[in-house]
């Protein structure tokens, strides 16, 4: 207990004096995860909406596949992205392996199906309500997709938050494709795993506290935004 107490105090000290190592790791984590979620949002939300609105052969199979991919094991994604980015892989020429770019790619692969599946569900519900009127107004299917995405924007925050949660808490894939290299690809989750195995609990605890705080703050802001939107737009 004494050891744990001392570790907690040291973790607090590191946070209060903005320890350079902690700041560097947190900054990289945020950069990688926010970039991945931004790309996931730009790709996944329209993809889910297209699946909801579009009529094409295999639509149901695509929806089932997307839902199934929500549970992709991150280490499997890590291995697949590793193979794709390795020198002999199809994307080896990009030279991304063991760089933050590779970690972004891996996280996009992880969050994309999750965000698209939630988007499909949310947009499909709205489409059921609006389809006839949008068709009567002669909206093209793409204009319908854009209108529905805009109308569901507050509900789709859930998809963005789910993606962010998955990206920030992910460890297996970024460990494989990033290599957990100090000052280069070390992010909060991989650092926590490493420092814990080394017995450096203060750093692991400090990073864990930051990780929890970031996730809590983002979720709190999103909740407040949804409450405001409900009051403003009904």
């Amino acid at each position, binding site marked *: 207990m004494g050891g744990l107490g001392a570790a907690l105090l040291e973790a607090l000290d590191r946070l209060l004096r903005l320890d350079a190592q902690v700041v560097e790791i947190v900054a990289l984590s945020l950069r990688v995860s926010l970039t991945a979620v931004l790309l996931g949002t730009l790709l996944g939300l329209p993809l889910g909406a297209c699946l909801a609105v579009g009529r094409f052969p295999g639509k149901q199979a695509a929806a089932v596949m997307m839902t199934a991919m929500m549970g992709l094991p991150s280490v499997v994604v890590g291995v697949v992205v590793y193979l794709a980015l390795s020198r002999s892989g199809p994307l080896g020429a990009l030279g991304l392996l063991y760089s933050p770019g590779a970690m972004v790619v891996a996280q996009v692969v992880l969050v994309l199906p999750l965000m698209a599946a939630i988007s499909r569900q949310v947009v499909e519900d709205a489409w059921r*309500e*609006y389809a*006839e*009127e949008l*068709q*009567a*107004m*002669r*909206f*093209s299917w793409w*204009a319908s997709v854009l*209108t529905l995405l*805009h*109308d569901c*924007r*507050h509900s789709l925050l859930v998809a963005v938050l789910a993606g962010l949660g998955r990206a920030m808490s992910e460890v297996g894939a970024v460990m494989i494709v990033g290599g957990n290299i100090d000052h280069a690809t070390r992010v909060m989750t991989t650092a926590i795993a490493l420092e814990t195995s080394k017995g450096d609990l203060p750093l692991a605890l400090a990073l864990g506290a930051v990780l929890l705080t970031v996730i809590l703050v983002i979720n709190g802001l999103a909740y407040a935004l949804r409450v405001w*939107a409900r009051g*403003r*737009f*009904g």
Partner: protein
Amino acid sequence: MSGLFPLACKAVGFRPNGQEVLRGVDLVLGGEGITVVLGPNGAGKSVLLRMLCGLLEPTSGSVQWGSAAGPGREVAMVFQHPMMLRDTVLANVALALKAHAVSGRERRTRGRAMLARIGLEDRAEQSARLLSGGERQRLALGRAWLTRPRLLLLDEPTASLDPSGVEAVERIIREIRTDGTKVVMTTHNLGQATRLADDVVFLAEGLVREHAPVQRFFARPVSPEARLFIKGELPWHVGF
């Protein structure tokens, strides 16, 4: 006369999942005035309107929009429960213009002018979802009117509105007609039919039983079904 007219239904049948809704509707509508479609529940009034809008395909027969290939953007429809996007009243009234490739600035200008015509100008920046039922219906009418359709289809536009709401909606419908738009609407309100209609189509059991000028329809209905309907006796309603 616009290329949309005469609007003709030729032996139109509609039978989804084996249930017969329309059983060979023959109907010709000109491009002027207000046509009110009357009939008991389940007669196929809403289905007929959706076919005239191109939202449903007949399972037999055909709908011909004059010389036009299809209904296109000259046909608009307002539903009994119009949708309201989670956005401002102004954004909602101008929504249909998006499909007409109108720029954002022009949409806002024309939207504000339309809100003034329908008496909602002071609500422009409020949420459309917070409007009352009557205001929503006025907004939906304004949204459709803004695109200057040649044919406007209204599916029970005043159902569940209070008398002042009904009066406001009827005033807008008259203005739309005066503006040169042909209106085809369904209603269960016989008083409303006498106030608004130029001609009445009476639909029962999936067939047009009568199509006549409004005065003649109410004074001297020809079909026995229409006579009973006007008297409030509906022999095909047995399931109360």
